[in-house]
């Protein structure tokens, strides 16, 4: 046992060959564009520049989907005067992925002001995406002025309450949650009693080995409550998922990628396709961050998610629009 210590796994809670340190090491790459994939229980990370050297087989999982978020169609201020253009770039990026995704998750703030023409604009652009199925959850900008009536008219088919629902794909259970309705003064995002009860019933019949993906607009972990970056009753929702071996939580809202691992739950926030927001506490407010035009696309992005059956955690790849 002489020489340099090997990079060995110290704590393998998920029994998937990844310890927290290894995961964080991989995730440290994510902000700058990394690709993480699990093969044979081993997490491997590659920088995006090295991706072209990978065969499609190396990148392919049993399920492949893309998450996009915070399109803010209708926004036209200095931080990005062409949000339709950057959404189009995001779609081009999706269409150029080596493995065509099966579907797209949009984690809210589809529009900026809930205007019909803003919803129409996003639907129109997404028609050119390689994946035709888009699953939405609303952001607070999609339910302005009408308590989500228009959102539900457009996307509420087969949903419950304010628009929550679940579906299954190849053994993975997906749950779309709504945490932008009935917000209380001074509070954070909110799921509410009715939705939590529905969720408890929704997962009751699932075996604990079922991988679960939860997606919602506002983060379901406390990132920076001072800016409203959290959900008041998220602990109750996560409580219903405690017995599951693999839970992946995908959120938007904060216009930047962040990751956290807590037991069997991995939390991810996605980049926006419209404009960046400052890091927590690093500006007077979470308003749109103005950057030089040539830097904008390096701060916007899409997320590619792959799942290989038999593995615990999902492989998550964030890439910028550059």
């Amino acid at each position: 046992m002489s020489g340099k210590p090997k990079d060995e796994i110290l704590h393998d809670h998920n029994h998937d060959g990844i310890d927290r340190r290894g995961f964080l090491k991989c995730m440290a790459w994510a902000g700058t564009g990394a690709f993480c994939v699990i093969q044979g229980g081993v997490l491997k990370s590659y920088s995006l520049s090295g991706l072209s050297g990978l065969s499609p087989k190396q990148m392919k999982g049993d399920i492949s989907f893309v998450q996009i978020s915070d399109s803010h169609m209708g926004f036209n201020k200095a931080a990005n005067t062409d949000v339709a253009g950057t959404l189009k770039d995001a779609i081009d990026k999706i269409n150029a992925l080596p493995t065509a995704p099966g579907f797209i998750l949009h984690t809210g703030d589809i529009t900026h002001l809930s205007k019909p023409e803003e919803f129409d604009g996003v639907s129109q652009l997404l028609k050119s995406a390689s994946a035709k199925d888009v699953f939405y959850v609303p952001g607070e900008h999609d339910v302005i002025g009408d308590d989500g009536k228009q959102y539900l008219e457009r996307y509420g088919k087969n949903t419950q309450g304010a628009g929550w629902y679940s579906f299954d794909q190849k053994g993975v259970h997906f749950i779309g949650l709504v945490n932008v309705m009935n917000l209380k003064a001074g509070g954070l995002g909110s799921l509410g009693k009715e939705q939590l009860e529905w969720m408890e019933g929704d997962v009751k019949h699932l075996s604990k080995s079922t991988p679960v993906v939860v997606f919602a607009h506002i983060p379901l972990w406390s990132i920076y409550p001072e800016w409203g970056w959290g959900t008041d009753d998220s602990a109750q929702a996560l409580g219903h998922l405690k017995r599951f071996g693999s839970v992946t939580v995908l959120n938007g809202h904060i216009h930047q990628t962040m990751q956290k691992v807590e037991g069997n739950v991995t939390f991810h926030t996605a980049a926006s396709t419209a404009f960046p927001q400052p890091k927590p506490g690093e500006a007077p407010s979470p308003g749109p961050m103005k950057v030089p035009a040539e830097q904008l696309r390096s701060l916007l992005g899409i997320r590619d998610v792959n799942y290989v059956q038999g593995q615990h955690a999902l492989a998550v790849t964030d890439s910028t629009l550059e």
Partner: protein
Amino acid sequence: MSSSIFRLGIAGLVIMLLMVAGRANGSGPAFMDDKTPVEIKIDNFVFSPNTLTVPVGSTIHWTNHDDIPHNVVSEDKSFKSKVMDTDESFSYTFAKPGTYTYFCSIHPKMTGKIVVQ
């Protein structure tokens, strides 16, 4: 002669002072029809001034200076603005005394208070 003019001057001054005091307290019918709105700015996700005390009948005028839309909703539902995009405004006249706490229902961390006397 000069002392009576002086006394008249004092009396006038006292009346003026009472009027000013009346205005500050929000009492005195002479100022009920004061229609100058009181401004509240929305900047960096903050209502400022954050707490405001005004006489009954005052109109408050909120203007959003952020690049993100906000609204103004009272907790007791007595008033609710439409969404205010950048540089848009909303006005509300407070006809009844009371303490009105309000917030932005899009960004509920943003709260403010109007005390109407």
